[in-house]
């Protein structure tokens, strides 16, 4: 038993971590290419501008994921005795805040332009010596973004699930929001083409609402994490039954009369305490060590579990579903 041991991910998760890192690098590369494609065709379209900003912001989560994957495996130190797992949460808090703020700014911008009745001029571009309506170039650039975003999002989901990686999961969500809003931008451009000037602003507003929603969902998740929320199912609000299962398992031991468990998530991993009321104190230290090991093996994410014998548990168990989790 030691505080200083680095966490060893199980083989399957370790492989997925490499996969996640690779996906993140691929994301950064492809999103750079989509951002360039959109920038080249940007023009004065509000929807295009919004899609461009979303592309740029979409690069932040993969960078954060990469940084966190590097940092989190460092061994705990004297200065950071609990390890570096929270790096994931902190980096993610920044991303989520940036996302939400950028969404609000873009929404205000597009709504103001709608209210002022600004009509987006979309002129021509010269492509290989042909003069074409710039709208077509925009549609092609956006179609490229849609394909990239769809494929990236679909590739990240299963990895995020096996890794219990909220950052990666939200990143996949963001790819999805990205390609859907780029689809909206296509509709906006075509509406301009048909002479409906409001199509552009409306598409931009729709995209920014999507960005705000992304930011809000991520913010809520990461704030929960930093508030030491109990483990929740990835991509949802529902609490996991892991604490209950650990308690049940502990209480099934013949020398334990009663147990109480509390867990919290540190990025990818889980830490927590188990209080037990022993009914038989023979070889208590040895039994506690063996029981800790057994309970730790119940879920790969459990990194540090402290078991403490007490004479009695006051108040018994915690309320099943604290109201604050809603």
């Amino acid at each position, binding site marked *: 038993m030691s505080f200083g041991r680095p966490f060893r991910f199980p083989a399957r998760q370790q492989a997925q971590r490499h996969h996640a890192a690779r996906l993140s690098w691929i994301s950064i590369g492809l999103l750079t290419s989509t951002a360039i494609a959109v920038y080249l065709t940007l023009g004065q379209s509000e929807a295009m501008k919004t899609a461009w900003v979303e592309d740029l912001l979409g690069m932040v989560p993969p960078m954060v994921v990469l940084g966190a994957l590097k940092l989190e495996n460092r061994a705990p130190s004297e200065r950071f005795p609990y390890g570096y797992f929270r790096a994931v949460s902190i980096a993610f808090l920044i991303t989520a805040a940036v996302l939400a703020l950028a969404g609000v700014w873009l929404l205000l911008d597009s709504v103001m332009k709608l209210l002022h009745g600004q*009509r*987006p001029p979309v002129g021509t571009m010269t492509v290989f010596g042909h003069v074409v309506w710039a709208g077509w170039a925009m549609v092609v650039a956006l179609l490229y973004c849609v394909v990239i975003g769809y494929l990236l999002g679909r590739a990240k989901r299963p990895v995020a699930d096996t890794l219990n990686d909220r950052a990666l999961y939200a990143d996949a969500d963001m790819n999805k929001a990205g390609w859907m809003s780029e689809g909206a931008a296509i509709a906006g451009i075509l509406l301009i083409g048909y002479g*409906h000037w409001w199509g552009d602003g409306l598409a931009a507003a729709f995209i920014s609402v999507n960005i705000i929603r992304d930011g809000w969902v991520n913010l809520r998740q990461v704030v929960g994490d930093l508030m030491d929320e109990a483990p929740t199912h990835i991509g949802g609000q529902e609490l996991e039954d892991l604490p209950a299962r650990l308690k049940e398992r502990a209480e099934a031991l013949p020398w334990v009369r009663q147990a109480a468990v509390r867990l919290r998530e540190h990025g990818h991993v889980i830490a927590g305490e188990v209080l037990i009321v022993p009914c038989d104190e023979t070889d208590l230290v040895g039994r506690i060590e063996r029981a800790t090991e057994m309970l730790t093996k119940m879920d790969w994410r459990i990194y540090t579990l402290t078991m403490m014998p007490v004479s009695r548990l006051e108040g018994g168990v915690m309320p099943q579903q604290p109201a604050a989790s809603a």
Partner: protein
Amino acid sequence: MNDEMRRACGARGGQFVALAARMRFRQLTIVLVLAMACDLPRDTDGAMERARGGVLRVGVADHPPWDSVTTNTVSGIEPAVVTAIASTLGVTPTWRRGSESELLEALERRELDIVAAGLTAASPWATRVAFTRPYRTDQRGEGHVLALSPGENALLVHVERYLHDHYSVKDTVGRQ
């Protein structure tokens, strides 16, 4: 690609139906979408249709050698360009004289279709009205543009095509 699209648009109805009869559904859909897309973009306020119907409102501000305006005459490089473009639509421009800012404000309110005022692409008005691509360069190296009412994208595309086909931004106009 563009020439083909234009040619397809020009196909006579009978030919089109005969062609359609030989195609499978998916190909037909693609062709229909292309045919529908051929007349894109359209104007938000119908400037192109008005021009074809005989009305093209052009604001011109005195800015020699680009625009020379007297009480009776309008001349210079830009009025010549605008007149040439107007003739491709079979219309004679109706000139309105005024100061640059006065005309551009009118343009923004869509009271005018085109403004010729010796504007360069660097003008801060670029975000409020629709500038064409630069078609000539002045001695300072600034590309000159015409201004169109924002959102009149059919007219904008028509004007830009004409500018692309007949002028080059590489040509420099000296100050006289």
